[in-house]
């Protein structure tokens, strides 16, 4: 299984979750995903390309996303990533795990 090089400031595994969530709404290119995460998180989540592209490849290898070449908004060739059916299941699973984790951490911190 692919070894991850996730952004050090993220919880392990969260990057995959975020990417799956992003491409789950509509197909997006790599730059788009980075911008999306950055905008929605008010510049908190700055995903480096060195983490983003290996992560995308890993998701592709696992069959959770597929890629397709298409034209970008400024008419350049760009690779668009799309969530697959198994990817959607994986997203649900990871989301579940993440929620449980957050609840658990929250419980510990508020104890």
């Amino acid at each position, binding site marked *: 299984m*692919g070894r991850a090089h996730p952004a050090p400031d993220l919880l392990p595994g969260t990057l995959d979750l975020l990417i799956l969530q992003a491409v789950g709404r509509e197909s997006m290119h790599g730059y788009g995903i980075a911008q999306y995460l950055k905008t929605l998180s008010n510049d908190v989540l700055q995903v480096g390309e060195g983490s983003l592209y290996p992560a995308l490849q890993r998701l592709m290898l696992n069959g959770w996303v597929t890629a397709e070449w298409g034209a970008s908004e400024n008419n350049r060739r760009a690779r668009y990533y799309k969530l697959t059916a198994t990817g959607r299941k994986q997203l649900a699973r990871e989301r579940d795990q993440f929620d449980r984790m957050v609840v658990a951490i929250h419980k510990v911190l508020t104890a």
Partner: protein
Amino acid sequence: MLLRRVWFIIRRHKLEADLEEELDFHREMTRQRLEADGVPTSDAAVEARRALGNTIAVSEHVRDVWIWSWLQDAVQDIRYAVRQGRRSPQLASAVLVTLVIGIGLNAVAFSAFNGILFRAQVTRDPASFVQTYSFVTGDRDRQWHGTPTKGTLQLYQAFRTDAHTLSAVTAGKWETFRIRDAEFSTTVRGKFVSCNYISAYMGPMLLGRGFIENDCSTAGGPPVAVLSETGWTTRFKRDPAIVGRTMQLDNQFVTVIGVTADGAPGEPQMPHVLVPYTQASPEYFRDPPSRHAWLDLSGRLAPGKSRDQANAELNVIAAALDHQHPGRTTKILVTNGALAAEPRNARGMRPLLVLVLGAMLLLLLMVCTNVTTLLLARAAARRHEMAVRLSLGATRSRLMRQLLTESLLLAFGAGVLSLGVAYYLPRSIAQLLAGNTSVTASFALDWRVLGYTWGLVMIAGCAAGLTPAFESLRTRLGGRAHPLSSSGAQTTSFLRGGLIAEQLAISLALLVGMGLVLRSKDDILKPDIGYDANAVLVANIDLASLGYSHYNALAFYDRLVPRLQRLPGVKTVALCSLPPFQGQRLTHITTNVTGTSGVPAHLRAASPEYFAVTGIRLVRGRLFSAAESRFPRSPTPVLVSEFLARALPSGSNDVGQRFSLADGRAVQIIGVVSDTSSVRPGEGDNGVLYQSTGATNLATASVLMRFTGDPQTLMSMVRLEVRDLDPQLFVSPETVATTIARESERYAVVVKLVAIPACLVVFLSLVGIYGVTAFAVAQRRHEIGVRSALGARPREIVGLLFLALRWPLLAGLALGILLSAVGNRLLQQANLVTDVTLADPWAYGSALLLLISAAGATLIPALRGAHAEPWLVLRND
């Protein structure tokens, strides 16, 4: 996932280019954003690049995702497997040895097939070698005759002058020569060849010179011969003074002009002596050159030409010649000279191939089952380890891969060792097969053998390792069963039963098959020929080479036969041409039925006593009269065997019918005699045509004697009598039994060849069935303990265990019988067995043997378990 990974490795460059473009796009977008934010253009580009970081590092990381971690895991697995092997060396070596037997035998069989069948048997430059076969149809006036697939003199000359796709065209014909030395005469395999034969395939010359065109220019002239290195070594002990020496070859004196290095195209044997084809018997040159096909035509491709081109061109040349013979069509087939490509082999070869390789694969499967049991026993013990690993977070697929790596590594090791075996063994076998004649078949390990062995390794590794791997992983974490108890999860009874059934079925099929082959070889070695082969003596008296004519020979035998008759112990003396099992001469009886090419028959001259000596009965008509046995008659009186009589169109009123033979002679049937076996030991003769001894040259006849008493004494007396009549004559009489033994020597070799794997199969199947059953019982040790603790008596426990075995054993037997039936059918198709049915004591015996082994394997641990103190058994858990 694996597929995707392999896909990536194949399409690596494309995917890397994609990534490059993608990163480029990302950089461009970042630059545009920065510009939009008001950063100057030049700074924006730098900034964008900085934001992206090291592109090469990124693509390295991406590549890691695809390949590296995978490779790392594989290396880890291999290291782990090696450590495991070192920790239990007995198990590893037991598995290794078993697998080497399985894979090795397979590789040897395949390599031998590959070497003998699929490769052109040409020492030098096999790539340019071509072998031709001719097929003649529509020859209405039946003027064409000779050996099917051979070429005529006319065809040879046409190929030589007109074929531009060939750089050399050669002709050859195998012949058995009798070399006479000072004391004894021996027979050697030799070849009549065209004069470019040596330069095309053999050479360089070790001594003297090869043939020059002049040696082949006129029929009959100059009597010269060249020895091959093999012939020089085996017959003349590498005598350096051989060149220039004259030796007697059949009836002719020839001068040895040179010795050439070995090399023979398209044949697994090496000719010992080569003679220009123009010196072949005059009968080959009597007919017009377009009629008689007797030459083996082969050649070398011209540079840059292909066999297909040669095929096309030779067919055009042959078709042009056909114009002179209306209705006749000659088709030419060009091959690379491999035995498997030979037209007469094409049909008989496939069942043999399927049979041998199929049996070998079955053997491999059986070996794998043995290994499976070995590994299963360990798998049970390793459940603990696997449970720990699973709870530490290893995925099942990851562990599966690791476990399979172990068995594949063992199989790989066995494969490498097997290649060594496959490299050396076929050579020794070939030497064994060929006896003292050298074999030109090459057994180099080419890509076919390597590929086949590699396939075997994969099959063996997976077949042997998959079940144990599943077994190791059959652990449920957090379930009811205690994951750390070694007997917590029991091997399912289905798996156990399946292994037993499989082992029994394969063992039975192999044992029965081997048994049938060995038994029918026995029939060939000691065939029932209708009379006691030990009580008939044969003496070949070579009067022809001393220049005797028929009448001189007649006078000679008039004196010899009464003398032999008076010898003590001799009952009947007969004369014949071609004594039993010493060769065959085929002829065709021309019938008036249109559309048939004549009825084939073995031709033999025989005196009336011959039939009494060899136990042949007169069915109807009469035997030859004394006068017919002495002088030629026209038409020639002949006797036909019952088989031949049935094949003739005349029906049952055949006595008195007239026919003509292939050589044009008219014959009249005077009687019908019973069938016999006199050509190939263990086989009926089909049609035999007996002509009177008066119709042939008696100088080429042999003497047959029915006798009682010691053959050695009689042989000496016969030798003395013959030398007394003509001191120049040397005879070495032998019994027909000796002839059969000599002729069936190659079958004896086959017996040896089959016997070695057969012993292995018996051993492996007994051990295997024992192992599988014992393992199945051992799995229930815990249960036995509990039952006896609860008061079950030993007899009941043993009964219980036997009862559990009934379905696997029945299924195994049924499957085994089915497989044996298929095998038996293939054996018969491949002509390897003389009619034996499955209702054979051997088949029953082997089934019984296997069942006893299984019973023993159940009984011993069952009794031990039943008698053991229950607390001891349970404490072990």
